[in-house]
């Protein structure tokens, strides 16, 4: 059982590391936000599953499920709010970005 917990711990921490790597290396604010929210939430949920297996009690399982649910509910909301404000404030896109569909839609309206 401790092998499963250890494997989940390493995998979750690795996903948190990938999220930070994306935040550090990607060229654009929007891409950075995409890396931080998706990979970060997935890594945290893997770690929570690991801790739920490790403790094995009802309380730990419920706490872990609560945190996972809360995390997956709130991370997209925070990211969407932030991206909306950033787009309105005209944070520049990467100069190699192919198309800006939101700008095209707003031009059509």
């Amino acid at each position, binding site marked *: 059982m401790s092998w499963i917990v250890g494997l989940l711990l390493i995998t979750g921490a690795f996903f948190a590391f990938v999220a930070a790597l994306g935040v550090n290396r990607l060229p654009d604010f929007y891409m950075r936000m995409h890396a931080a929210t998706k990979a970060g939430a997935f890594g945290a949920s893997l*770690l929570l599953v690991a801790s739920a297996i490790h403790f094995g009690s009802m309380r730990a399982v419920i706490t872990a499920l609560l945190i996972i649910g809360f995390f997956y509910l709130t991370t997209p909301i925070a990211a969407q709010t932030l991206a909306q404000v950033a787009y309105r404030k005209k944070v520049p896109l990467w100069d190699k970005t192919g198309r800006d569909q939101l700008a095209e839609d707003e031009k059509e309206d």
Partner: protein
Amino acid sequence: MESEFAVYFDELGTPLAIATLIGSLFLLAAFGLALVRIIKGPTAFDRIVALDLIGGICLCAMIFFAVHFDQQVLMDAAFAIALVSFIGTVAFARYLGGGEQ
């Protein structure tokens, strides 16, 4: 004092201890990378995203503490961190929006 260290050395070879060590090194590297982005981020939005990620990394570190020291209470601390991190990010976004919406 000495006996506590002896316990840790006994547990040093178990798979859980090795996984905790490797995982904490990953988390430390992630923390450093996010901190670099906070220092050099061109706009305030980049800094907020990195700060949000650091909140998530703190949550991960809290779970590592909970598993390593067998303290189930620390999972509640992780829940509190998740809550505060979300509220902080949304508050920062609204503040930078300037109340135009």
